[in-house]
């Protein structure tokens, strides 16, 4: 029923995201060469038959590093999006439906998290316990849950005064059932779309952390880290840094567009 105009764009976005998922899952098997093997005999090599995207300053194959690097890019962002989706939805429903002190406490937490710059927290955190990938992901989850929570709470508040919710209340349907089985399906469109935006955002932030040297350990094949490592080669060998950079942008944009598209699709479900 949707207009054909968005069709090909969304198809391309889905293809990009599926491709990244395949790389993240089977990366080490698909990579033509070992991403860690250094070949000091051929450093900064331009694209060739042996190295399709050339090699970096240590002679490592860039294509293989990109393929294997999809995992850290994708998995961290996925964990952040999925975990905060779960907690954000549960807490958002609770805050919106119950209101009162539960709502007050949760919303103060949201305000607090919103008023702190994410990157600053991560840098301070890295300064205390050292730069590590999974702890950074955990911190990001805590910082991201409020995004989901706020969206779901707002949508829930809109549903609560509707007669179908009041009818369920007067029928004596338990609160948890009203929240999960009545209200959630009606707010899920925004919640699901938001999860995709969160994913795109987390992907960019995690890459940024690696770029700053606060994410994955040095030497790990990772898009953000590659971008940083290969920046000095920008003029002699641009593909080395542009390729991982382009993939970050492409994946994040695709996720965003898919999120918007899904929202449109899901929002009209009740009208058919």
């Amino acid at each position, binding site marked *: 029923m949707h207009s054909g105009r968005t069709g090909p764009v969304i198809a391309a976005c889905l293809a990009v995201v599926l491709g990244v998922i395949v790389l993240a899952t089977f990366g080490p098997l698909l990579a033509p060469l070992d991403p860690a093997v250094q070949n000091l005999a051929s450093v900064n090599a331009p694209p060739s038959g042996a190295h399709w995207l050339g090699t970096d300053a240590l002679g490592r194959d860039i294509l293989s590093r990109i393929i294997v690097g999809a995992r850290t890019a994708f998995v961290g962002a996925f964990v952040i999006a999925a975990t905060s989706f779960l907690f954000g939805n549960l807490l958002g429903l609770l805050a919106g439906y119950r209101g009162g002190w539960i709502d007050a406490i949760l919303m103060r937490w949201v305000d607090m998290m919103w008023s702190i710059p994410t990157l600053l927290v991560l840098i301070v955190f890295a300064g205390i316990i050292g730069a590590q990938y999974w702890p950074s992901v955990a911190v990001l989850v805590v910082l991201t849950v409020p995004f989901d929570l706020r969206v779901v709470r707002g949508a829930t508040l809109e549903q609560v005064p*509707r007669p*179908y919710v009041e*009818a*369920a209340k007067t*029928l*004596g349907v338990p609160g948890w059932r009203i929240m999960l089985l009545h209200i959630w399906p*009606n707010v899920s469109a925004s919640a699901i779309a938001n999860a995709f935006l969160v994913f795109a955002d987390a992907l960019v932030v995690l890459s940024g952390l690696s770029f700053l040297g606060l994410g994955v350990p040095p030497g790990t094949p990772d898009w953000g880290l590659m971008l940083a490592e290969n920046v000095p080669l920008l003029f002699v060998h641009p593909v080395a840094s542009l390729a991982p950079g382009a993939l970050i942008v492409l994946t994040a944009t695709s996720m965003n567009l898919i999120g918007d598209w899904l929202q449109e699709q899901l929002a009209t479900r009740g009208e058919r």
Partner: protein
Amino acid sequence: MSASAAVTANPQTMTSPLLSVKRLRIERRTAEGLQTLVSGVELTVQPGETIGIVGESGSGKSITTRAITGLLPPGLTATGEIRYAGRSLLGLRERDWRTVRGTELGLILQDPFTMLNPIMRCERILGESLRNGGTSWFARREEAIRRLAEVGIHDASVIDRYPFQLSGGMRQRVAIAAALARDPSLLIADEPSTALDVTTQREILALLRRIQVARGMSLILITHDLRVAFAMCDRIYVMYAGSLVEVAPADKLDAEPLHPYSNALLLSEPPVDRRVAELVAIPGSVPSPGEVANKCVFVPRCQWAQSACHQGSPLLREVMPGRLSACIRVDEIRGQMTALRRQSAEAVFRPADTTPRNQILQAHGIQKVFGGQRHPVVALDNVFLEVREGESVGLVGESGSGKTTLSRVLVGLEHATAGNVTVGGVNVADWRKLNRKDLATIRRTVQVVFQDPYSTLNPMRSIGWTLAEAITTHKPDTRQVDREVEGLLEAVGLPTSYAQRRPAALSGGMRQRVAIARALAARPRVLICDEPVSALDVSVQAQILNLLNRLRAEREIAYLFITHDLSIVRQVTERIYVMHRGRVVESGTTDDVLNHPQDPYTVRLLASAPTAERDWLDGTR
């Protein structure tokens, strides 16, 4: 062309009409092609004449006037002929419209709450229309005050107020003043009183008629209420599913409708002065124009339909001088239609036995205050109400009277500030302190049917899911849930296959049936019906009211029927409470209160209920 020839033969068209519409067809462009919304509309308005366009939702009455005023939404196109004072309006450019709208055609819309710009004071709202070069600010202000006086607002300070500071009736008056600012010779009023309370509705309609007479202006009144049209109009156009089915002088139509649809519409209006044995409902619901293309539009719901009625859409033709009907069998069935009306008027309602029974629902000394300490708003003030087993009790009042708040207090959706509620023997002082068992007793005793059929069902859940949940909530160990769901659907007159459907696939009346079925799942002893039919078309209203009356007889349920409509309360209740500004001002048996009202408010409310008589509007300010 036969139809337009008939219109010309109308004696009233001897002078040249102010507005004439011919062969009007309105179509919507969709992915599947052109969809017809309105077809073959022919109408004329003489100078100084009031015509009414009457129809239910989806009849195309509003879209027709939008085409006349050049305000069709994008994607809709009108073809045919619309001439105003000899000038063709169809295909006018937006720029040329400005010289027509306001100065020639004035427009008043249904909702006075959104029609006025909320951030403009009344002075600017009127000033925008009064502005015609050269006049000073002071002169315009004086003129605006004079215009407000014309619409019955004699308080000059209103000019400095914002719309939100005015009541609904005042806003509609300001909107009328704005529409009249440039002295149009034709005023189009689209449901001008539907969003207003009955007492205000009568004042606004009387005002419109007074101004129309004083100015010698023409008026097109769009309404779904035949009684309002009878009281206001000279001639009435009855529309159904995008087509005109009957055109007649108001008094003639009232005396004898010449189309089965008009006849059925008249019959399904509940009378306010007496209780009928059973309302005559039109089966089914209003079809879309596409569903009834190339046949008589009323065929699916007409008891007199024959094979001839399925062949081609009949045109309006002159049946008697000045009277047009689109029914091809009208001459054969006239007698039967008259008989049906007489039969309905003569059928007497036999009251059920009124032996006093046990009380099951009681509200005692209920007080409800909204807002903080500083600006308290008293919504309910020391209200007492009781419902006994098997009886039907009405709770009547206008918006803001507190009737809905009271019903919400009775089921715990609001908590009373003071007073207590007794439900099925459980005394509730504080809902939060009830134990599980008492709460379950209350839920089994009282259930609610809400007003808005469009949001009363969860849009994401199938009808079957919703009903199954209601069943298992009350009896978690129910074995054959599907069978129970089917039983409930049958009880409310819906096909069992509807269990698979989502609410969006159902009409308003069907959704309200599902809502009733859901409430019945708990096997309640009292059903609180909060304006259950006010959002429905008249022809569907009667179906739901009959269903409620039938269910009551079958299941011995008591009703607390909340409504603003006195004619409905007359049809379904034995006892009523009249509420005004948070207080019960009068109570007693329905017949006593409605026949011999004591409280001045009840008297006023009764006088405001629309009747078909023309003098209904007399004697108002």
